[in-house]
């Protein structure tokens, strides 16, 4: 299946790297928009990732909005019941973890869960279908799983990161935020000879706590990215096997359904946990 890709003779390496290449657009030195020669350009945009990500976000919004618009306390339709199960699941997860009052966290959790789930779910589309279909209409690269693009996962975790900082400052004030960064885990001495050591202790705390703070979005995004990228890569490798790919693909897809759901859940749950940590005083 891989070898007859339509681009002439192809090695396995070509096939794999072709599948891992984003469709990119950027401006070159002359200010012209150019396609797919953007390696290393920080102003480039991965058009395929953005397209699928926004499309799936719109799918989520449309599906849930339709239910929300018609939702009533009466007898629910089957689809409404399914949506409500997801909403209740997210709601109970939020209520278990986050004890404060917030109109943002539960919808944020729902959006993250369903959106990430849908993005991960694109991994189950056989790896050649959409790239080959788009090649047939003249689009050379098409990476269909947005969550295998590190930009996408980082984009989301950075939003979560700013929310963490926002919630910390909102609930503890700027001084509380700075105090959290500098006065933990070793409390600096406040009198006597120990005062000489205080700046060093504060600096030490600052380094430690900053790393801990920055590790949150990094681990959040890299976890999702790593899982999905590895899964996608295995699908691509399986696709190289000829006829044997059929049972293997099925087996891996079944296993991957678990990862798809689990990673979406973990991303949502950790977001909620980080935000509840940010808004609760120790």
């Amino acid at each position, binding site marked *: 299946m891989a070898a007859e890709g339509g681009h002439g003779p192809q090695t396995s390496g070509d096939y794999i790297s072709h599948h891992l290449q984003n469709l990119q657009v950027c401006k070159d030195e002359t200010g012209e928009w150019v396609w797919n020669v953007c390696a290393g350009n920080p102003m*480039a945009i991965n058009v395929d990732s953005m397209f699928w990500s926004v499309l799936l976000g719109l799918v989520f919004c449309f599906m849930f909005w339709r239910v*929300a618009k018609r*939702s009533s306390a009466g007898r629910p339709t089957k689809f409404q019941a399914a949506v*409500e199960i997801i909403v209740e699941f997210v709601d109970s997860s939020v209520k278990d973890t986050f004890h404060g009052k917030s109109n943002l966290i539960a919808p944020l959790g729902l959006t993250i869960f369903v959106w990430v789930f849908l993005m991960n779910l694109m991994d189950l589309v056989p790896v050649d279908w959409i790239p080959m279909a788009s090649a047939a209409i003249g689009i050379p690269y098409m990476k269909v799983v947005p969550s295998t693009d590190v*930009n996408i996962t980082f984009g989301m975790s950075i939003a979560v990161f700013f929310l963490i900082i926002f919630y910390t400052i909102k609930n503890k004030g700027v001084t509380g935020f700075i105090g959290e960064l500098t006065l933990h885990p070793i409390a600096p001495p406040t009198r006597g000879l120990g005062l000489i050591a205080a700046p060093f202790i504060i600096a030490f705390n600052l380094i430690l706590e900053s790393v801990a703070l920055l590790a949150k979005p990094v681990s959040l995004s890299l976890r999702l990215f790593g899982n999905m990228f590895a899964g996608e890569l295995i699908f691509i490798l399986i696709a190289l096997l000829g006829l044997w790919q059929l049972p293997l693909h099925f087996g891996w897809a079944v296993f991957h359904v678990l990862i798809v759901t689990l990673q979406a859940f973990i991303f949502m749950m950790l977001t909620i946990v980080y935000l509840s940590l940010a808004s609760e005083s120790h």
Partner: protein
Amino acid sequence: MDINMTLIGQTIAMIVFVWFCMKFIWPPILKALEERQQQIEEGLAAADKSQEKLVEAQAQADEIVSEARQQATGILDQAHARANEIVAEGKSAGVKERERQLLAAKAEIEQEANKAREELRGQVSAIAIASAEKILMREIDGRAHDDILGKLAQEL
């Protein structure tokens, strides 16, 4: 795997979707859920209450039925008694009527008999007088012996 502007694009997309969810998706769905929870709670409570009422009504109905049955037997008994009474009354009235008519008939018969006897007596006395006249035409003065003849007629 370079970091590029896609990151910013995704962050913006996420903010928009989360805002949309917060504004248009989460509140109506949660409101409907809470309303339904309340409705179900109320429904269950109402079901319990109506169950209780049903038991109560059942008991009441049983009571009414047994009362009615009692009343019905009472009415039936009364009706039987009345019927017997009517029959007895009818019987006694019939007996009385029969006696009355019997008495009336007897009286009439006696009257008739008396009348006939009276007539007969008159006729016999007339015959006796006539035959006595014939025998004693000469010797007996009708007027002088009228009292004897009268007495005779009386005895007859």
